[in-house]
């Protein structure tokens, strides 16, 4: 076998929540038997944004905030790949907020793992959009699940906690399956404490609450999901689980042409195309 890069050891601080996230992704890839060379992991910039170095797959280090558009480009160009985007809460909710909205809207079949620690880790501790309160203002924190619920097209909204591996693993597998089945955008927010700048293990362990355990919880009911997320948040809880899942059409399928491969694998040789070009040119004849 050709020797390619060996996934390196994570460079995170001991105890960082991101370790759990990495393990869950590795585990889920194994669970669904996803071949490494047909997988691409893209990460944003941040401590979270080094996760691609630690997973056996094709890897890409995106620009800060741009991991979702980049992942979309990969998926559209080669729909056969399993595309996993990952990044921090600064990356996804601050500089990347607009792209997140539009990814919910388009619903391409990619997985997005947002590692939420309420802080900018790599730049040493500034507040992120999910920080509980931004001094000296009373700015409230963004809730990614509610956001997804507000956007038609969103098809998979889940939250897990890095400190609760079982649920995290289950959610991650479900997310990969959602994307693998071409059902659209699988959004997984993982509460992933930053032990160095915002150590929230104790606090979050007491707050996480699996909504899906409620009697008769129906993950296809958008209004009910909104209501329970909102209500739990008001009570100071952090709702987790596969909160919402629906059957909105996936973006890449709309571009698919019957009988033709994805753009990355098309035949672009002159033989197969020149007549077509000549026909186009003829329209400009003068």
């Amino acid at each position, binding site marked *: 076998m050709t020797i390619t*890069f060996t996934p390196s050891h994570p460079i995170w601080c001991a105890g960082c929540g991101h370790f759990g996230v990495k393990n869950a992704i590795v585990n889920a890839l194994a669970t669904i038997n996803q071949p490494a060379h047909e997988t691409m992991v893209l990460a944003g910039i941040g401590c979270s944004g080094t996760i691609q170095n630690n997973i056996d797959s094709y*890897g890409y280090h995106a620009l800060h905030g741009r991991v979702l558009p980049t*992942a979309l480009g990969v998926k*559209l*160009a*080669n729909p056969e790949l399993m595309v996993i985007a990952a990044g921090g809460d600064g990356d996804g909710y601050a500089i990347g907020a*607009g792209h997140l909205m539009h990814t919910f809207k388009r619903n391409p079949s990619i997985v997005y793992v947002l590692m939420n620690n309420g802080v900018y880790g790599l730049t040493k501790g500034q507040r992120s959009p999910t920080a509980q309160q931004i001094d000296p203002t009373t700015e409230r924190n963004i809730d990614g699940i509610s956001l997804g619920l507000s956007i038609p097209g969103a098809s998979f909204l889940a939250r897990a906690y890095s400190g609760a591996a079982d649920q995290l693993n289950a959610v991650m597998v479900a997310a990969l399956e959602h994307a693998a089945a071409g059902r659209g955008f699988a959004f997984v927010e993982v509460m992933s404490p930053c032990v160095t700048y915002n150590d929230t293990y104790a606090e979050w362990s007491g707050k996480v609450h699996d909504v899906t355990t409620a009697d008769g919880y129906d993950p296809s009911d958008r209004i009910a999901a909104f209501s329970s997320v909102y209500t739990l948040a008001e009570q100071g809880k952090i709702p987790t689980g596969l909160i919402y899942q629906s059957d909105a059409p996936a973006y890449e399928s709309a*571009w698919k042409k019957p009988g033709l491969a994805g*753009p990355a694998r098309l035949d672009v040789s002159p033989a197969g195309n020149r007549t077509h*070009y000549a026909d186009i040119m003829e329209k400009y004849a003068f």
Partner: protein
Amino acid sequence: MTIPAKIDDLTIMVAGQGGDGSLTVMNVLSELFGRRGYHLYKSRNVASRIKGGIAAAQMRASIVSRGCTGDQIDLVVAFDQEAVTNVGPDLPPDAVVVFDSSDKPLDRSTLADTIRVIEIPFGRYAVRDLRRDLFKNSMSFGVISQLMNVDQDEAEDCLRQTLRRLPERVLLPNIDSFVDGRKFAMDDAIAAGGYPWHLERVTREKHLMINGNDAVAFGFMAAGGRFFAGYPITPATEIMEWLQKHLPAKGGVAMQAEDELAAVNIALGAAMTGVRTMTATSSPGFSLMAEGIGHAGSAEIPLVIANSQRAGPSTGMPTKPEQSDIDMMIHGGNGEYPRVVLAPGNPGDGFIIGAAATNLAQRIQGPVIIALDQAVAQDARSVTPFDLEAVEPDDAARLTEEDLAAMETYRRYELNPSGVSPWAVPGTKGGMNLVTGNERNEWGLVTTVPAKRREMMDKRAAKIEHVRADLPRGVTGGDPAARIGIVGCGMQSGVIAETAERLNAAGTAVRYLQIRTLWPVLEETADFIRGCDHVYVVEQNSEGQLMHLLNGHGAFGNLRSLKKYDGVPFRCADLVQHIINGEAKAVQGDAA
């Protein structure tokens, strides 16, 4: 009655209040001139708003192919007083003005007495309120075809061809208006002053009528381009629209992103999978893409970026041409990375450069920028058909599963003398790798070790040397022995060629160079400049960016800047005058 002038070079302007379809008379005229074998150069001059405000279209019809509009407007068709008032002082003495006098008669105060004016109350003739603009257009075409002594059948045929998509019930009254127009011209104008012109019938090979935006998009597709992501912006939107029309049929994707940051990053993602990818924008959008383009350079991702420049700074004048992003295209974005900047001089060149850029991006695994300006991008002209046979997608250093199986190790950023590392795209078995915009080692793992950093910087820089010999060469012309040079690119190409022709004809020996590779600065450019006593650098900006670029990169001291930055292209007549004046001064200077 004077003898009608044979038309060998005529510039026509149609002007009115803006709005869709108000200037379709130009299309009928194209049809007519095209059939007669003329070459055409067409430009539009619109305000950045949908309706209202002066809009004007210009067309130069000539027997010799020309790359710019004429010095002066010979025929004005005006549906609006403002247009005549503005353009009046610049008209030649033998110009003809056709004016819509429905509202009130023409105020001739800005017109010389010698100018022939034909006032037609279009309103009275084209009263049907359905598609009023169209009737105006048909009628004015009737007038013009008569003035040019074209017989009714041929002219009518042109009109029918142009309006062929209209339902019969709309077409017929248009034909009536056309006939009315011919009659009016005959009764009122020809009777009084004779035919001003006589349209020739010449032969030329089959040509294409196309603008630079479309041609660049076409060149990209012909070189195997199958992925595009962009965002609407004047004057670049046609590139996106062309590809949205043509790529999906071939399985490609051409998508409108939510903004330019998304566009360039979607493009980066796609390009990483191996599909040939382009994005396109205009100046402010290019500013926004600076980070992404630098990432292509750093992470070594092949990407074509077209910039159809508008007049700046900032939002500037979206519909006006300028070449004021030269510095930004070459130097924008943080840090230093290899890039190529190419500037087509016309739509034919646009096709060639669109294709060349697509292959070059693959070969350097990095960003290749196509520098258009609003004039090259949106002016349509007749060009010789594209040489489709000459275009061959170049697969460069792509690795297959089989290649990989035969390799002991595979490193994405392998160091080698060409600087171009063999490339396994995602999905290729055995080729797993890491791509990043941080400094890295051969495996793609982040490093800051000084020696590795130097190697990686040198590797990336080497890629330009690797393709230098294949970068598009400039076009030269004029008197090869001349000591006076003229240099320009893009929208100046047609102007400097015609200026050189006139100067040489007038006894001032000049030669010219149309630069097609702006960056890197080619040795041929420095050679050309060194070979002249002095060189006029003609550019559409206020700082003389091209001149400073050439000064900064090897051409020292003998450059003279000719700049224009008012949104209006140079006219050949002015350039000729500038240079003649410049030389006169130089001679005086020599004497002193």
